[in-house]
């Protein structure tokens, strides 16, 4: 397997899953790491299953897909049902409890947070849920630098929603600090 860290982000089309993957990847590049980012999506752009993967490594990356993720984000019930079993032992499963109500037993650590709910209720726009998720993942794992992720958001996100996305990022970092339901 690749020696790097494999991250899989999954949910439904329209949740910003692929954008979150790109943000993590661009942050990793800013940290001087090698990155491959891939995605899978259905013929429909919204509502269908959506998956983005990021491999971050100090060395070259051959196989571009993640087989057993070190970090797995699930933002829909269908996503957790489909991918929970692929989590690496000792891996990290991050669950958006706004949409996921039942988490199967996994061998890794589970962190449950209302990601989409925070975006909708605290920030007023659910569309930034994936930016909250990116902040949460980085807060939990430190896979890329916090500043690098901020810079990636500034470089990638359209100007009109930049402030909102930066707030979403901070909300994600805060979610990583809170002690919500978490266990293994």
């Amino acid at each position: 397997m690749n020696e790097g860290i494999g991250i899989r982000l999954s949910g439904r089309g329209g949740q910003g899953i692929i954008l979150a993957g790109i943000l993590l990847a661009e942050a990793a590049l800013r940290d001087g790491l090698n990155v491959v980012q891939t995605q899978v999506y259905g013929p429909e752009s919204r509502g269908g299953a959506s998956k983005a993967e990021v491999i971050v490594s100090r060395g070259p990356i051959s196989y571009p897909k993640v087989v057993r993720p070190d970090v797995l984000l699930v933002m829909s019930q269908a996503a957790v049902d489909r991918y929970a079993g692929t989590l690496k032992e000792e891996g990290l499963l991050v669950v958006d409890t706004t949409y996921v109500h039942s988490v199967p037993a996994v061998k890794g650590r589970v962190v449950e947070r209302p990601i989409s709910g925070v975006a909708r209720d605290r920030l007023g726009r659910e569309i930034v849920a994936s930016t909250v998720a990116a902040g949460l993942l980085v807060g939990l794992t430190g896979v890329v630098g916090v500043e690098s992720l901020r810079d990636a958001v500034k470089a990638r996100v359209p100007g009109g929603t930049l402030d909102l996305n930066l707030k979403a990022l901070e909300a994600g970092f805060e979610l990583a600090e809170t002690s919500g339901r978490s266990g293994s």
Partner: protein
Amino acid sequence: MTRKAFWQGNEAVLEGAVAAGARFYAGYPITPSSEIAELASRRLPALGGVFIQMEDEIASMAALVGASLAGAKAFTATSGPGFSLMQENIGLAIMVEAPCVVINVMRSGPSTGLATKPAQADVMQARWGTHGDHPAVALVPASVSECFSLTVAAFNLAERLRMPVFVLSDEIIGHMRERVEVPPEGSLEIWERPRPSGDPSEYRPYRPGPDGVPPLAEFGGPYVFHATSSMHDERGVSANDAGTAAALIARLGAKVLRNWELLPPPEIVDTASLLGSGHDRPGKGAKPAGGVLLVAFGSSARSARQVLVDHPERFVTLFRPRTLWPFPEAELSALVEDHESVVVAEMNTGQLVLEAERVVAGRRPVRAALRSDGEIITPEEIWEVVCGRRDARAGRTGESWSGTGGSGR
């Protein structure tokens, strides 16, 4: 200064085309190539170029031929269904020797197949998709970086050889994002088509230069010429005598073969070269027993390369063509006898393996790792075949067809 970019494969193709001097795009968007059309529609007009969304791929290819003969570096991007429609006018481009580039971001077929999923099943279509005897040049990137560099090479070869050149990528390579070191503007080697000089009344549009390629004038200039899809003589005038036909067919093929050294060479890596010279492989220097020569291109080559990383204990050499057509037969042939068997990995039901078998010519057993369900072939699947535990084509009696009827059974 070298610039670092983080691009999708399709973006890198477009940037490579622009860097090579392409200023004319005609196409019909299709998944998974659409980003190329989308970006071309923004970039080319801003550079004084032309973007046309055509009514279909037949017309797109016709527009490329016209633009090319009028002097433009012209290209289009498509996927399998569109590549099928283009075949008739690809033949026209070959016959009138119009330089142009066709990007085929391969997806699962036949027909519309799985629109958003990868395949490598257009290997033979790229070679023989249009009718008649003809040469084919197809380049196959295995990274986003190569989407840039091999697109530049495709334009260079198209111009230098006066013919359509294909870039075969696939949904995985086209949509994945990687870092690209973009060479500084002006540092790239860019080739232009040979152009005529001297008295326009003496111009013979199909009289070959020393490398077999005739100089090409531009429509609308002082060099007046005629281009026809029918068999023609040096003046471009239709001629149906046997001698003219034989000479033209021979020259069209020979202009590629005699310029072989211009084609991007294969990458050849073994475990030692991949993991660094410090890696201690048993029998390094000598050729260890049990060696496997692994042949793969494009996204399958990424999986194949992972096999070398995961299994440093096994002597495996990866032979990765960058030029798929004409197939680098001499380079492959030279490696065959240093290995005990040959394995071909590809995402189709067995196309390139036929070419490998032709080159191996019975000197070693040839096995295949194949996948054609719209999913990327995995390193594990290839490893099973490398170890000899599986061969996708063993006992080809149809049992695999009846045995994997899907979950609906």
